[in-house]
């Protein structure tokens, strides 16, 4: 059976620039192992999505998260997702749906049919959960349907879905006029989630512990922001390739001391590298921004290929899911109710670039963020990735690029086209030919300015 085939070619490992990033593989593996262990010990396990505001809540209630998007990404990175995608296809899910969801659903369908893990599951597999905690936020519609579809295979596993909106951007309207309503709504959503979790686990929320974890998360956000800002240095000590590793503690380990400690160590390492003028590569010629799009997890070595051409990525928008709390326009330390605190942090994060956009007619918050990074990080060119199966994160990238080019008329850009998980969408030779041509344009523009 084709579904039982193991990947034929072991993917080449991406070389990391930082020691911290090189440890992420082992950390991720340990994280998956800890979920398997928790399952054996009978602890409550929840399927979880990234960036859903509930990190502190589930940690405070000792619910073990299994991050389904992470697991699909691991399957993709190990080039072992195709058999799960095929399985989802056999279940009549369209191949043009989110391939994270397809991979996860294919795995669930197979596991439930067998009554055990599918053969040789990457890193031990995706366990059967006790509950599924969902939110599409307002940007990822597949996430609203994923767990509903998963219930075809685990009909006894309850789903709790929360809404996490934020005020939409309007150039002629100050979102602050409506922000209180949004915060109030989110608090109610989170309160409902706490009640659901209490009912499922038979435990009561420890509100003091929740407050401690909220504080830890604030401190971690500040530390991450300060650490990533170190990458402004020339030469830059760390690139987006490494950031695609260091996203793990940001989105899968938030509200843990482990995440904070990781960034403390990364911060120290980057400071050492900057003091020694040690860049990501010895001869940094072109500084690029990863300006949007999730990466192809099976092709992270492309970042090394960029490096081989003298190109580095000091900054990216993808997975930089934090801002410095002290830069927000409200003093969050005064918001002592933990749920309200989480809600304000959420609204302030998503509206952070609104004011800047309103000052530039025709602009947009996402574009302002790119402009700020281009200036701060001394960027020469922009790279985006259109993943065919992830429309919600990727629709609009070209539009953003067009707006950006009104500001930076001669900035070379490269659009890569592939997927997050589905390796059949990828052609290494074509991708690298595009990168070669992009490097030529960077050189042409740079030499014009010399």
């Amino acid at each position, binding site marked *: 059976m084709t579904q039982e085939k193991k990947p034929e070619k072991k993917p080449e490992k991406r070389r990391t620039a930082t020691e911290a990033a090189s440890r992420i593989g082992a950390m991720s593996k340990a994280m998956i192992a800890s979920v398997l262990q928790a399952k054996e010990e009978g602890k409550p396990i929840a399927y979880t999505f990234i960036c859903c505001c509930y990190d502190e809540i589930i940690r405070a209630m000792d619910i073990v998260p299994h991050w389904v998007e992470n697991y699909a990404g691991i399957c993709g990175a190990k080039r072992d997702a195709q058999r799960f995608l095929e399985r989802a296809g056999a279940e009549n899910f369209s191949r043009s749906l989110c391939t994270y969801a397809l991979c996860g659903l294919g795995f669930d369908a197979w596991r439930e049919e067998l009554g055990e893990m599918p053969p040789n599951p990457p890193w031990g597999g995706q366990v059967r959960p006790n509950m599924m905690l969902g939110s599409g936020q307002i940007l990822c519609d597949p996430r609203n349907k994923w767990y509903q579809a998963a219930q075809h295979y685990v009909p006894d596993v309850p789903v709790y879905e929360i809404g996490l909106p934020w005020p939409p951007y309007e150039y002629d309207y100050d979102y602050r006029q409506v922000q209180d309503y949004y915060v109030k709504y989110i608090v109610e959503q989170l309160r409902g989630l706490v009640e659901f979790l209490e009912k499922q686990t038979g435990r009561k929320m420890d509100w003091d512990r929740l407050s401690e974890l909220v504080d830890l998360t604030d401190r971690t956000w500040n530390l991450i922001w300060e650490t990533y800002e170190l990458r402004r240095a020339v030469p830059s000590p760390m690139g987006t390739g490494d950031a695609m590793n260091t996203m793990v503690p940001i989105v899968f380990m938030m509200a843990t001391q482990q995440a904070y400690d990781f960034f403390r160590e990364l911060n120290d390492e980057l400071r050492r590298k900057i003091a020694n003028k040690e860049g990501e590569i010895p001869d940094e010629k072109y500084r690029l921004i990863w300006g949007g799009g999730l990466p192809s997890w099976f092709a992270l070595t492309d970042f090394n290929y960029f490096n081989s051409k003298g190109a580095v990525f000091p900054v990216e928008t993808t997975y930089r899911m934090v801002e410095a709390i002290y830069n927000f326009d409200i003093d969050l330390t005064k918001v002592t109710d933990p749920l309200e605190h989480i809600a304000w942090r959420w609204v302030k994060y998503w509206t952070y670039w609104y004011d800047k956009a309103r000052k530039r007619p025709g602009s947009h918050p996402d574009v302002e963020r790119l402009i700020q990074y281009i200036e701060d990080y001394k960027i020469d060119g922009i790279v985006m990735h259109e993943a065919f199966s992830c429309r919600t994160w990727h629709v609009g990238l070209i539009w953003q690029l067009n707006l950006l080019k009104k500001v930076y008329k*001669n900035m070379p850009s490269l659009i890569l086209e592939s997927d997050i998980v589905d390796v059949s969408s990828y052609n290494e030779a074509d991708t690298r030919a595009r990168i070669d*041509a992009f490097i030529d344009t960077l050189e042409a523009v740079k030499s*014009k300015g010399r």
Partner: protein
Amino acid sequence: MKSQYFAGVDIGSTMTKVVIMNQAIVASVIGPTGPEHRKLANRVMEEALAKAKLSFDDITYVVATGYGRINVPFADKQITEISCHARGVSYLLPEARTVIDIGGQDSKAIKLSNGRAVDFVMNDKCAAGTGRFLEVTAEGLGVKLDDMGRLSLAAKNKVEIGSTCTVFAAQEVVAELSAGMPLPDIIAGLHEAIATRIYGMARRLKIEREVALTGGGAKNIGLVKALEVKLGYPVLVPPEPLLTGAIGAALLGKDIVKKAAESGISLPRSERRLREATLFG
């Protein structure tokens, strides 16, 4: 001083092109690439040398470009087709600011400044919008690919092709033919469909006049006219639109040699022996 000759070898997905230049083009050859011919770029090179009455030792520098550029063992350097098209078009049509290249399996738009590519977009993921679209649909219509352009000029009411996928478009044209639609109207509809795709891609760049059209697609008068309608103005087409990449490659080789001589650098060169290009070696 002995005259210097420079060769550009452009291995595209469909055609292999070789140009030999000194002050101007001395010889050029266009031959099919194909699965077997891919291994035999040297034969096209030999043919070009024979036409130019030169031996391989007479060639100062060889630059390979195109889809198969890494498979040319006798090349001194490989340069991307984006850079080579930019250089070639700037040489042939100095007024061009944008290049639209329609190849057999990809299409691209290149923004030019001072003879160099400063931005580009490319479609190598979908056959619609490339020469392959016309190849497949020509087969479905039972028409020679080379005749498509001429035939479309007789169109009275062009047929609207709804399918954006090459495979489905091929089915659609057969259905239109069965329904009795005139051949020229169907072909004109196909040209409009492909022009719409290419124009949509090229618009990602800010298209600036003058626009040069290159590649096999530029040899199709129907497609050229359809693109002109989309753009709203005439395009420039070089005398032999298949050769711009190879010309650019030869010129870039010349630039490299000149720059090295000015800097007193001795350039590494490959062995002057024609060997079979291989995919793996």
